[in-house]
């Protein structure tokens, strides 16, 4: 357990992906089975046991410490598991840590015991383990048993790390993953070259998806419009719907996220409609009265712990299909997009489901015609669904379905973002490589306050600028700090003095969390407006008006105000 605890401890502080991978790789290479397998399961969320409730942990510590000292400590530390880990009484003082390490429980012992432990036995067992661990070990154990690991490592990153041990591709692991069980002895044996690849006996496995590149204006010159087809780019969630028959004839249906996470349990209404054998690639959307709803609406259905009938009725899930990977038992991924598209159209007709429909093609003969469609989807056939469209997808007719992001086959051409001129108000240091730079910025726009005109924060952004711009903003922050609140610096922002950013964003939402009452989606700094004074920045009313009009209408104001304009002119028009 101590090695696993030390790994979690280090991962919890490490901001960089590469460094995280190095730490994980080092752990997997040097830790024997089955401990490393259970660690992989813990990180990928594949362990299932009854989680300990905070109340149980409170009771344990109350039996062992003075209530006043515990209250003072908890108040200082602020986290229950951490407080308990730090003040858990240790017999014999602090000098025998190494002895404790020797007799502490292993991760395997903990995981296998928890799987079969009765509810009434848990407190005593937990106390015994806590007695045998040091501060970090106790912290990790409590995080593990309460199901709150939160160390910033995705299942995908853990799998990628395991794959790299044997110079394998992560997608190879993804394919066999659903049929593997902790502690994954067969998986490690395979990547270490000691055994054959584990068989995928799964009738409904995840297939790694094909991804696109963002297209730049310069790319079009080399592309022949007649060799491509286009679809709307939906503002939903990319998913894969898979159904297959087990050896015993039972049908297994699953819905996967883009990263291979099984999200079936969150969308039972949609999974019920998978009455086919095969694998569909498409977009998860919320559909009401035949109309696709905006991403804001979809978000209200996502990340809910329990899926109630009310939630399902209010937010009916829908699949808009745009590719067919497997039809019956036939793998179509080697076929061209044109062939797959024809098979998909036939399959959707056969399926005849109100929950699953076809993502239509956008007809075009020249790139400028497509540009016009992208600028006005409603007029180009999307009708009322135009609000849920965030651009177009461009796909080569002769492209096979390849996992990953192959070059030159699929392109995404997003609609231009909204932009607004806002004033830098607060700055905070970044993490990792950026820890010596003020790189996280809170910016605001003007509004009428109680004491006259004032800037009100409307968002926070920490990317979009170049390294040279970062150095420039960093210097500006240091030279123009007017106040400090812990790690946060307030930067000068009055009518004449301050830094104006052009902020690009994808949309707006009402928010009760922010003073301004709005929240931006995906904000980033698109330009430094050194030519502008803070007084020239935009007003909150402009953003309010945008919200009122609906997020997807982007005509500029009649007065020609430069508030919400299309950032870069469409050169193809």
């Amino acid at each position, binding site marked *: 357990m101590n090695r696993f605890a030390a790994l979690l401890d280090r991962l*919890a502080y490490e901001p960089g992906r590469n460094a995280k991978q190095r*730490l994980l790789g080092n752990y997997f290479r040097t830790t024997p089975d089955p401990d490393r397998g259970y660690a992989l399961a813990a990180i990928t969320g594949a362990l299932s046991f009854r989680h300990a409730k905070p109340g149980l942990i409170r009771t344990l510590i109350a039996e062992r410490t*003075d209530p006043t*000292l515990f209250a003072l400590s908890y108040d200082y530390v602020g986290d229950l598991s951490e407080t308990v880990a730090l003040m858990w009484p240790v017999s014999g003082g602090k000098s025998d840590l*190494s002895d404790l390490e020797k007799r502490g429980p292993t991760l395997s012992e903990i995981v296998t015991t928890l799987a079969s432990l009765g509810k009434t036995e848990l407190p005593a067992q937990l106390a015994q383990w806590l007695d045998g661990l040091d*501060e970090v070990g106790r912290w990790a154990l409590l995080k593990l048993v309460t199901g709150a690991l939160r160390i910033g490592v995705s299942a995908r990153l853990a799998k990628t790390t395991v794959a790299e041990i044997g110079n394998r591709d992560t997608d190879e692991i993804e394919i066999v993953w659903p049929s593997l069980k902790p502690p994954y002895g067969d998986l490690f044996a395979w990547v270490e070259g000691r055994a054959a690849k584990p068989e995928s006996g799964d009738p409904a496995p995840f297939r790694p998806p094909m991804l696109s590149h963002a297209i730049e204006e310069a790319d079009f010159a080399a592309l022949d419009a007649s060799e491509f087809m286009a679809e709307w780019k939906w503002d939903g969630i990319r998913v894969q719907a898979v159904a297959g028959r087990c050896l015993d004839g039972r049908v297994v249906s699953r819905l996967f996220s883009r990263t291979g996470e099984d999200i079936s349990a969150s969308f039972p209404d949609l999974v019920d409609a998978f009455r086919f054998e095969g694998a569909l690639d498409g977009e998860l959307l919320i559909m009401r009265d035949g109309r696709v709803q905006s991403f804001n609406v979809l978000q209200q259905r996502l990340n809910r712990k329990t899926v109630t009938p009310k939630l399902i009725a209010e937010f009916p899930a829908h699949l808009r299909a745009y590719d067919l990977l497997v039809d019956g038992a036939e793998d179509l991924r080697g076929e061209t997009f044109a062939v797959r598209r024809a098979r998909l159209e036939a399959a959707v007709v056969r399926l005849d489901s109100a929950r699953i429909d076809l993502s239509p093609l956008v007809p075009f003969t020249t790139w400028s015609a497509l540009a016009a469609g992208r600028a006005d989807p409603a007029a180009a056939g999307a009708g009322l669904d135009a609000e849920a469209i965030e651009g177009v997808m461009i796909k080569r007719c002769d492209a096979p379905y390849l996992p990953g992001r192959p070059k030159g086959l699929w392109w995404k051409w997003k609609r231009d973002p909204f932009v607004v001129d806002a004033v830098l108000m607060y700055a905070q240091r970044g993490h*990792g490589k950026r820890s010596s730079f003020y790189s996280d910025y809170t910016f605001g726009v003007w509004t009428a306050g109680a004491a006259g005109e004032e800037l009100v924060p409307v968002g926070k952004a920490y990317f979009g600028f170049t390294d040279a711009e970062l150095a420039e903003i960093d210097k500006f922050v240091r030279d123009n700090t007017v106040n400090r609140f812990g790690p946060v610096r307030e930067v000068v922002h009055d009518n004449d003095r301050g830094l104006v950013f052009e902020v690009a964003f994808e949309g707006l939402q009402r928010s009760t969390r922010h003073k301004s009452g709005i929240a931006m989606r995906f904000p980033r700094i698109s330009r430094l407006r050194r030519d502008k004074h803070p007084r020239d920045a935009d007003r909150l009313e402009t953003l309010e008006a945008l919200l009122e009009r609906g997020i997807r209408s982007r005509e500029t104001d009649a007065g020609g105000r430069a508030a919400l304009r299309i950032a870069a002119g469409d050169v193809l028009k």
Partner: protein
Amino acid sequence: MTYLLAMRPEELLTPTPAGLCCRPGGFHIDPTRAVARALITHGHSDHARPGHGAVLATPETIDLMRLRYGEGFAGTVQPIRYGERLRLDGVTVSFHPAGHVLGSAQILVEAGGLRIVASGDYKDVADPTCLPFEPVACDVFITEATFGLPVFRHGDPDAEIAKLLRSAALFPERAHLVGAYSLGKAQRVIALLRTGGYDKPIYLHGAMEAITQYYASRMDLGVLRLARDADKADLVGAIAICPPTSLNDRWSRRFPDPVSAFASGWMRVRARARQRGVELPLVISDHSDWNGLTATVAASGASDIWVTHGAEDALVYWCQSRGLRARPLHMIGYGDEEGESESPNREGGNA
């Protein structure tokens, strides 16, 4: 002299805004403003300030004050050896090792049979760079409580150094920057690295050059170099020690992809480490942890405990629950030996 026998502890040592004042002896202990006669427990800037008329301290503390503040840091200076007894008016004073940093002392003040120990900052665990803490029996024990909560148990510093060395081995292309207070902690980390088997040059921030050289003249700290004299290539895989405020500042940009470590008792609490953007917290403290504070209080035999600064509430509560008289002094101006708050002039790029 009979009036001295009836003296109450508060008459012998009185908490004042300028620090602990001994009126019968005509001196202050660790005064926070300039006074006529000052007794200094140790060289950290929150305890040892310049500008006093006369200073009495251990020879090491006097040397360190001179290094920090220059020749004229006080009107007159008088060194006193550990254990030497000195009469100041009607009061006898003596200095005893506090185990905090080089030269650090607890000050025993005696008059009319009453013994008060002002312990300054102290720790009761081994430190290769200074003499160990020496328990002194007394009636009144004046203690700090920087880590006066049961969540603070500092553990084994060698294990923390081993963690640092493991990280250096795992990331050989990166530099490891260890934030450490310039006086005491920095040199202790260097000494611990040496006993941990690390024999490569250790790089220093310019702000700790003079003090580290002073330590190195008295003990073996191995090969030390200044970071400002090094090429970026030299700093690949290097371990460097700097003041905590330099960890995340422009100074750190000379290092290749630095891992930011911080050696402090505060690193026990995750939120503290995260607030500072520390990637490798090292729990190494020059103050007593909770067990050290309570054990020292108990061993002093004192029936009166005065708590100067830190997390007083829990320690006062603990003393009272054991039948000791205890009270917080709420002294202001201590516990900030490195000037923790940032200021632009501390972020100099050439240090």
